[in-house]
């Protein structure tokens, strides 16, 4: 998918280093999401990690996460998101933050 300004989203995320941990630090309960009316996380997540599924749920992949916390701030339903930090030393590594 080519982005709005010619940089594809994949290329954008390619510029960021992620030391992916084995444990998923964010877990999404898609069953809760199915009854969510806003799906606010889908556009608000700057890493675009929340993909709506055909059955009204959410498919989530934790690997390329900025750990910014936007998703749990905008989440519309109690219990949909379990948000923790990746284990020490893992996750995003900014060089020019």
């Amino acid at each position, binding site marked *: 998918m080519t*982005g*709005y*300004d010619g*940089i594809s*989203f994949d*290329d*954008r*995320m390619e*510029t*960021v280093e992620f*030391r992916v941990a084995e444990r998923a630090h964010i877990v999404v309960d898609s069953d809760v999401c199915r009854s969510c009316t*806003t799906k*606010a996380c889908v*556009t*608000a997540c*700057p*890493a*675009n990690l929340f993909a709506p599924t055909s059955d009204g749920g959410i498919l989530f992949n934790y690997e390329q996460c*900025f*750990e*910014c*916390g*936007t998703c*749990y*701030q*905008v*989440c519309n339903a109690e219990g949909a998101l379990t948000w*923790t*930090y990746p*284990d*020490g*030393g893992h*996750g*995003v*590594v*900014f*060089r*020019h*933050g």
Partner: protein
Amino acid sequence: MTDVIVVGAGPAGSAAALLAARDGLDVVLLERGPFPGSKNAYGGVVYGRVLDEVLPNWWDEVPVQRWVTRRSTMVLTEGRALTVDFRSTDWGKAPYNGCTTFRADFDSWLAGKAVEAGAQLVTSTVATGLVVEGDRVVGVRTDRSDGDLRAPLVIAADGVKSFLAKEAVLLPRTQAKHLTLGVKEVLSLPREVIDERFGVRGNEGVDVEILGCTRGIPGGGFVYTNRDSISVGVVVSVEHLAAAKVRAEDLVADLKAHPAVAPWVEGADLKEYTAHLIPEGGYDHLPPLSTPGMLVTGDAAGLCLAAGIWLEGVNFAIGSGLEAGRHARRIIETRDEKPYRAALEETFVLQDHKRLRGAPGVVLSERVQQQYPGLIADLVQGLFTVTNPTAKPGVVKLLRAAAKNNGVKLRHLMTDGLRGGKVFR
């Protein structure tokens, strides 16, 4: 025996660890990233004068990209831009004013100062929770195999998401209303090209704050020059961004495509994309700054000053961290945390916040965000468009037309003018 556990080796934590260690206390500084700054992203400019007293001549050592000698404030509407531009050679020599720097470099440098003073920096370690006895915080849990760490004082410097402050019920779990999301692209360009495009030389740099580039979503944009890259980004209200169903990177794309910005970024390659939250509630939404056994500093305490033309968080984090570190020994001995808040009241940290408490409300208001950029652009365009053979219209007439055209009533202009004058007095 550990005297102080500082959680987070950002500017607040390292400043706290520095002074506590200098005071002879046994200090452990925990950081969840592999090195200080690895989890942190900002605009950015660091205003370093807060360090004068504790690190004399800091400017000789700080890992600077460029010294900001030029500051512009820009108001954008589609196809139009009004810029107020200021430059000062004073800002290009000691003691300087602000420098652009990357957090991986700056935070590592400041943490190094704490280590030189005797603090023990432990990276790649998450403080996963508090150890509490009765109503007192007596330590933190970590994700290390050796587990808990105990100390008579914990300093929470764990940033805007502060799970420690949340666990101590000082902060609510969610507060989207008072948070903005900042996203930033670092775009590489040769040094000479930056010098030419921004009209600077040597290690001089530019800081541009931008209003009116966020499709009406409360917030703003920025452009900063680094040595051989520029940082371009937007900061927007989390709540309104989510409601508008707009993607943050599209707002950056908008900004880069604006005719006032496009020539700056032309041909530049994306080097890194980053995202981070900012606490913008200001003075009226500060949490309690301590609980028995624990002090809260920097962004964890919402101490970032985000007041339109000012976005200063690093210096406020350092300012609060320094006071936490300076008073740590006394707080441990008396088991009374009050001197920390009292000290902050005496410094710029709470004084600026108090004076500018109304700023977030004004700057993020609907009229300032959605109507005034157009009004100003209409007015200025009217002033400078030569309409011959028709005679020049008077300023009052132009103002009336610009106000009407942008749905602003003249009495709104009056009240907002007065309110702005009061808030920024």
